């Protein structure tokens, strides 16, 4: 077939080239089935996003034949998006997650691959990670996710400048906390900052009080689905204690309209408006970047949650996120799954990545990084976190991650009401007993 060459056909061809180029570009960016690319969705937000993306870039450079393509989402948007995508059979090859209850729902509907045989074949991969990080990746004795990134215990942060000004010492027990409250309030400083609108922020208080008063068994019973597990006497005592603290004005005025995602709660600490704050260890990095000279000028103090007198729990116990997790979608092609496993084996928590996590003020879950931690600018904090993570007899996973989404939503709802003082500890336990095991 001969095309008569004219100005018009030339123009037409010129126009067609970029269009077809664009079309092929579109085709390869979607979750293409059987293609030579694995897809990977994770969370946006610096500095963590940079480390995650950097790891993928290095992997792609080293593996020109098995590329990974990244899409990032904002935290809350991601939670909805990933669920919808998995439900619709359009999941990415590599699923970034928090383990626990949500992972269990994926497993129960056969959406993620069992990685136990792979870990058995490659024991060196398993052995270089913190053993405590595998709990939240395990469902009914099988491992469905690769723990990675960093361990994030909940820590009691305090403002040294404020403590010096008021002339008091950081609390060594629950009674100390209750005694500090009126002293700080009298100086016009809020004892505790709290982003109460986010609800999981309030939950951290209950996690510690349950553990310190009754030990890790109290929540374990809930997790195991024991009937009326929330009615444990230690639970009632913990719930009552937290309401006592609310009634004594222990939290900043207006805490239930403060959100954690805007970091307003952390700003209250480094602007000297609040004396203390219970928050995840990731808050350190945020205060470092946003708090001016607060961290560098030695204004920030940190400690593990103090014991409660007469409590059964070990004061060395901790709660929080044992790690973050990567699963492989069972809907992915064999080729994509292979790329994902290669990435897990050679691209995750490499020496470069470990260094980058430490730079962001996080403790990566790879064993033997003590030396790197000690060399870091934030060595004092990082060694403190490493100490908690490696010495805690029990490291409880955040409740809303550990429980199923159904139970977690009821939990968060009732926690908000508990802190509002609109329900009693007794009503709280009754409402939650109803969703045990759901």
């Amino acid at each position, binding site marked *: 077939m001969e095309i008569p060459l004219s100005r018009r056909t030339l123009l037409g061809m010129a126009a067609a080239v970029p269009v077809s180029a664009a079309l092929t570009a579109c085709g390869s960016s979607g979750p293409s089935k059987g293609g030579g690319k694995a897809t990977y969705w994770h969370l946006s937000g610096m500095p963590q996003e940079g480390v995650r993306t950097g790891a993928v870039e290095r992997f792609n450079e080293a593996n020109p034949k098995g590329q990974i393509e990244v899409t990032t989402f904002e935290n809350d948007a991601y939670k909805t998006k990933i669920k919808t995508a998995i439900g619709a059979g359009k999941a990415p090859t590599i699923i970034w997650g928090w383990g626990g209850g949500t992972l269990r729902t994926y497993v129960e509907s056969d959406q993620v691959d069992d990685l136990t045989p792979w870990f058995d074949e490659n024991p060196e991969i398993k052995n270089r990670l913190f053993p405590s990080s595998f709990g939240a990746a395990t469902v009914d004795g099988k491992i469905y996710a690769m723990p990675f990134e960093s361990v994030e215990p909940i820590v009691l942060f305090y403002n040294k400048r404020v403590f010096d000004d008021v002339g008091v010492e950081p609390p060594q027990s629950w009674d100390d906390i209750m005694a500090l409250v009126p002293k700080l309030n009298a100086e016009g400083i809020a004892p505790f900052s709290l982003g109460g609108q986010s609800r999981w922020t309030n939950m951290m208080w209950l996690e510690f009080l349950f553990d310190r008063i009754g030990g890790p068994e109290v929540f374990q019973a809930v997790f195991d689905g024991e009937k009326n597990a929330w009615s444990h006497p230690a639970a009632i005592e913990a719930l009552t204690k937290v309401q006592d603290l609310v009634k004594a004005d222990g939290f900043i005025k*207006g*805490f239930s309209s403060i959100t954690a995602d805007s970091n307003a709660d952390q700003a209250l600490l480094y602007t000297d408006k609040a004396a203390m704050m219970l928050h995840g260890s990731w808050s350190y990095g945020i205060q470092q970047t946003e708090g001016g000279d607060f961290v560098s000028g030695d204004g920030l103090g940190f400690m593990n949650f103090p014991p409660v007198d007469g409590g059964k729990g070990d004061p060395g116990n901790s709660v929080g996120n044992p790690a973050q997790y990567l699963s492989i979608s069972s809907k992915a092609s064999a080729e994509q799954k292979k790329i994902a496993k290669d990435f897990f084996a050679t691209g995750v928590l490499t020496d470069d990545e470990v260094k980058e996590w430490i730079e962001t003020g996080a403790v990566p879950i790879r064993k033997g990084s003590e030396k790197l931690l000690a060399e870091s600018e934030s060595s004092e904090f990082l060694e403190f976190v490493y100490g908690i993570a490696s010495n805690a007899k029990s490291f409880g996973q955040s409740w809303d991650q550990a429980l199923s989404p159904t139970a977690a939503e*009821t939990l968060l709802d009732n926690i908000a009401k508990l802190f509002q003082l609109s329900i009693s500890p007794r009503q709280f336990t009754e409402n939650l007993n109803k969703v045990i095991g759901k």
Partner: protein
Amino acid sequence: MSALTSSTGREGRRGILPWLAVPALLFFVGFAVVPLVGVFVLSFTTWDGIGTIHPSGLTSWRAVLTDPGLPHALWVTFLVMAVSWAVQTPASILLGTFLAGRQRYRAVLSLIYFVPLLLSSAAIAVAYRALLDPNFGLGAGLGSEWLSKDWLGRPWLAFGVVVFVVSWQFVPFHSLIYQGGVQQIPHSLYEAAQLDGAGRIRQFFSITLPQLKYTIITSSTLMVIGSLTFFDLIFVLTEGGPGDATRVLALDMYKRGFQADLMGPASAIAVILVLMGLAIALLLRRLGGRDAGESQLEGA
């Protein structure tokens, strides 16, 4: 195409006109009827949004209807609807009547009043949340004790904020409707009233307001039905809090469906919302009288 252009006779038009509605009808079926049926079916199932869908009869309906949260969410929804209607309607009528004048500065003003409508609800909610922050917001910035209240942390204050922000966003739109309504009123009525010695206030109550009857019904229908779907604004502003003080039905549906993985009960609530919307729309049509569909200008 040729049939349309060549046949100008009555017969030909009658033949072609119904076919012109087909694309719109297809869209309506595809994007409204099919999902609606889907939601109805889902409300009789158990589904966590990921796994397989199990038919479960009336379980979801029973769970929703016996949940003490439902009467509360219904009450909050109704309250938001009623209070925001009561705030918006007088404000919009007065503003619309004022803007209907023919002076140039009013045209400029009406453009400025229109701005809130152009912003997305989420952006408005984020902005108000920042302004109302008790520690870093407007109150703290101006050093005003009165302004630095715990706006979103006390149930009634939070409810008031929701109504205020909703009104701030939608009064411009309804003013525009009323502005158009007022401009439709024949000038001769006002001239006659002036000859009879009626003042401005008398004119407003005796001519403008009665003549706006159908505009009021249209605007109220939009307001009331629209308030059933308030979700984005409340979600970003208060997340239904404090506690569940501003947890309207649409938000309840989202939380059950997408946060608690209970698609069945969430679908049941969606069905309830659809039924409420239909009932209210029919009720408002009735209130308008039998002639509501007819032109208000006839015989004027």
